[in-house]
């Protein structure tokens, strides 16, 4: 236990150092969400006048979706980083060291989570500047960040499966983009459930992102909705079990 913590902290430290030094590693996943935040909050500004739109402004409604989108992007960055480390012979360097293989994965998960939390915090900051308000205050923001990081980690499992199976960073990125868009739009990310066509509303209930977005949306706009938060963590945990089982299997195959 202590040993695993020591080993994974060392590997976490490496990834943190890289992120601090190569700022792109921190900002890469943020560009597109920030662009969406700026554009969508303007383009759809008048949506709040629609009957059935129960939020103060489209910005208030949008911020949680942007946080979720950032987590999705950042998750795909994780898989790409895995391929890069394999290609650069760094994974071999870790495998040849007398450390547990699980520490290698844990160190990566810890670094991913840290990055995702920082990115969520940046989105919160930009939203504040743009005039968004956070109903649940600092504690609520903390909860959002934890949710975003957990969900991002679960999704990173998927990105690593794709990365390890294809062994190709660019392909992983392309598949990531290909998956992210439908997943994002087939949810309540950009339109409230009440305003979605009924088929889409049904599809959205099977989309894990809907639950994250709804929980964060409540934290931003109305208050602590423990039911929504519980569901969000439940869905995230379920997703993580599936993606991490597959990712661990793919990892084993690559290193054997």
């Amino acid at each position: 236990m202590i040993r695993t913590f020591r080993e994974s902290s060392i590997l976490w430290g490496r990834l943190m150092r890289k992120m601090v030094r190569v700022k792109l590693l921190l900002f890469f996943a943020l560009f597109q969400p920030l662009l969406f935040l700026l554009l969508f909050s303007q383009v759809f500004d008048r949506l709040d006048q629609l009957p059935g739109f129960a939020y103060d402004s489209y910005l208030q409604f949008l911020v949680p979706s942007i946080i979720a989108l950032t987590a999705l992007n950042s998750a795909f960055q994780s898989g790409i980083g895995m391929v890069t480390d394999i290609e650069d012979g760094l994974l071999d360097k870790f495998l040849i060291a007398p450390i547990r293989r699980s520490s290698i994965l844990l160190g990566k998960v810890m670094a991913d989570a840290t990055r995702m939390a920082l990115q969520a915090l940046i989105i919160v900051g930009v939203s504040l500047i743009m005039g968004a308000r956070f109903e649940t205050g600092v504690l609520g923001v903390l909860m959002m960040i934890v949710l975003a990081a957990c969900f991002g980690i679960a999704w990173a499992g998927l990105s690593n499966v794709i990365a390890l199976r294809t062994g190709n960073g660019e392909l992983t990125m392309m598949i990531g983009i290909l998956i992210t868009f439908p997943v994002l739009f087939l949810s309540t990310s950009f339109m409230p459930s009440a305003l979605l066509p009924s088929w889409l509303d049904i599809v959205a209930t099977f989309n894990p992102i809907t639950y994250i977005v709804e929980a964060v949306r409540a934290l931003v706009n109305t208050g602590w909705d423990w039911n929504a938060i519980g569901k969000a963590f439940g869905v995230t945990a379920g997703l993580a079990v599936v993606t991490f089982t597959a990712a661990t299997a793919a990892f084993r195959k690559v290193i054997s």
Partner: protein
Amino acid sequence: MPLIEVSNLVKVYPGGIRAVDDITFTVDRGEVFGFLGPNGAGKTTTIRILVTLLAPTSGTAVVDGIDVTVAPEEVRKRVGYAAQFIGVDDDLTARENLVLQGRLHGLSKTEARRRGDDLLEILQLTAAADRRAGTFSGGMKRRLDLGQALSHDPELLFLDEPTIGLDPPTRRALWVYLRELNARGVTIFLTTQYLEEADALAGRLAIIDEGVIVIEGTPQALKDDLGGDAITVTLAPGDGSQVERVAELIGQYSDAGAARTYDGAVRVFTRDAASRLADVVRTLDSAGIHVARLEVSEPTLDDVFLRHTGGKMRVEEVKPRSRMMFTRKPR
């Protein structure tokens, strides 16, 4: 007890490629053991099994009394490994890369730093210690990679084509350092495609081709095995097309199989070069062949290599005395 003991080792990759096909050899403590072979011979596969990165299909590999498949972690503690492809983190500095490896090998922060400083000094990277490895030249990266393999002061070092891509002065400097390491008691297992390198470093070597060890011994013994000296006939520029005919003519003077043909040259090995030289000259002269150069020399490892790796196929590509070069396969 030998430090490395490999018995009947076989590796079949998924898809059926028999990369290593029943090899057996030992390496003693304190040796520099050269593993020589062309591209695709199975060198990297063997090394990766020995450093626990790859599971063998059958057979056993024992390092320092430990079976690599039974207690891989114990093996990892004891060995250093510099892979064929350099593995340094370009975003970290040289010092950070070294400290990271030291830490992963169980050193405390202070120990890892101290060891890192020592290695930077030894590998002459102190001036570049705090520069990002991404800015390094190929030679500097190689040295850093070697430093990483040494970060925990292992008693056994595996080097997979350590000088590939290095310019000759850098290569020679690395040789000097490897000899020093060996003098301090580090056992070195080294693969190479450069015969010159095996000759310069290895006390004993094995030649591997297509997954099979074709011969094993000291460089001198392998050369002696060719039967004495080499007589090389280099034809006049216009007569290059005559090599086959010349080979036929002077093949009778060889004490080790047929004459070898190269691009514009023919070579025979003989135990009595002095008197054979006269025979060769006479024979060629009466056949009306123009000779540009005639040379008597010790056989090189090139000759050994060609003799034992079904050289027929590759001979034409190689000029006498030139180093054999193989292109690097992309991973």
